[in-house]
C-alpha cells in the first residue's frame, strides 16, 4: 500500500504530450479506434474470402484500415513525433476518402462491393469524410496552443 502523498489528482496540463487524447481528443480517438477496427476487419474478411471479386477495392480497404490504425495510435500517444505522423496520417486519410470516393463513383465496376471510402464513406454516414478534417483541426489547435 503506497504511503499517502499529495492529494491533487494529476490533471492534464495545458499541452502535455498526451493532450491529443484528452478533451475532444477522447472522442476523436474513440471514433478512430472504431474505424480502425471496422475497416481492418471488413478488409480482412473481404480479402480472405473473396479477394478475386474486387482486388483493387479490397486492397484500398486494407490500406484505409492501416491508415486508421496509424491515426488511432499516434493520436493516442500524442508525443511530438506521434503528432507529426498523425498529421500525415489524417492528410493521407482525407486524400484517400476523396480520391477513392471519386473513383468509386466514376468507375463502379472496380467497386462492386462497398469499402469504407466508397462514395466518400456514404456507407458509414459520411463519417469517413469528416473524421480526417476533425483530426487535422484538432492537431492544428493543439499545435497553436503549445
Amino acid at each position, binding site marked *: 500500500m503506497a504511503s499517502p502523498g499529495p492529494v491533487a489528482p494529476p490533471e492534464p496540463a495545458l499541452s502535455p504530450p498526451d493532450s491529443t487524447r*484528452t478533451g475532444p481528443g477522447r472522442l476523436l480517438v474513440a471514433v478512430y479506434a472504431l474505424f480502425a477496427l471496422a475497416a481492418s476487419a*471488413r478488409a480482412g474478411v473481404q480479402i480472405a474470402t473473396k479477394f478475386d471479386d474486387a482486388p483493387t477495392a479490397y486492397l484500398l480497404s486494407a490500406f484505409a484500415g492501416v491508415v486508421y490504425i496509424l491515426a488511432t495510435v499516434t493520436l493516442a500517444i500524442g508525443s511530438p513525433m506521434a503528432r507529426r505522423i498523425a498529421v500525415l496520417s489524417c492528410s493521407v486519410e482525407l486524400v484517400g476518402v476523396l480520391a477513392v470516393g471519386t473513383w468509386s463513383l466514376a468507375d463502379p465496376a472496380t467497386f462492386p462491393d462497398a469499402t469504407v471510402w466508397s462514395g466518400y464513406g456514404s456507407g458509414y454516414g459520411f463519417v469517413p469524410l469528416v473524421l480526417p478534417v476533425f483530426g487535422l483541426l484538432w492537431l492544428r489547435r493543439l499545435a497553436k496552443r503549445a
Partner: protein
Amino acid sequence: MSGVLPTTVIVAGLVLAGYAGVMSARDRRMDVPLLIAVGVVEVIVLVLVGLVVGKLAGGGRPAGGSATLIGYLIAMPIVPVAAAFWGLLERTRWGPAVIAAAGLVMAVLVVRLHQIWPVIHV
C-alpha cells in the same frame, strides 16, 4: 424491423446516446448512473448475441457467409465495455460524449446484424 429483442437493443442504444449526449451538453463528467445505463445495454446485447450464437450452434447460417456475422458478434459486446473504460479516463464532458457515440454505434451494429441475418424474431 421484426423482433422485439433487436428493436429493444436499438432503442436502448439510442436512449443511451441521448442520455449521454445530454450529460455531455450539460458539461457533466461520467458518473455511476451512466455506467449503470451502459451496463444495462451490455446485458441486453449479450442476450441478443447469445441467441444468435444459439442459432449458429443449431446449424443455421446467414446467407452471405458467417465471417462478417461473427465479426459483429465479437464486436458488439466489446464496444460498450471499451467505451466505458475509455470514457471513465476522461474527467470532462467528453467522457459521456464517448458513451453517446458508443450508443449510436450499438444501434447501427444491431441494424446491420439484423440485415445480415434476420433470425431473431423474439
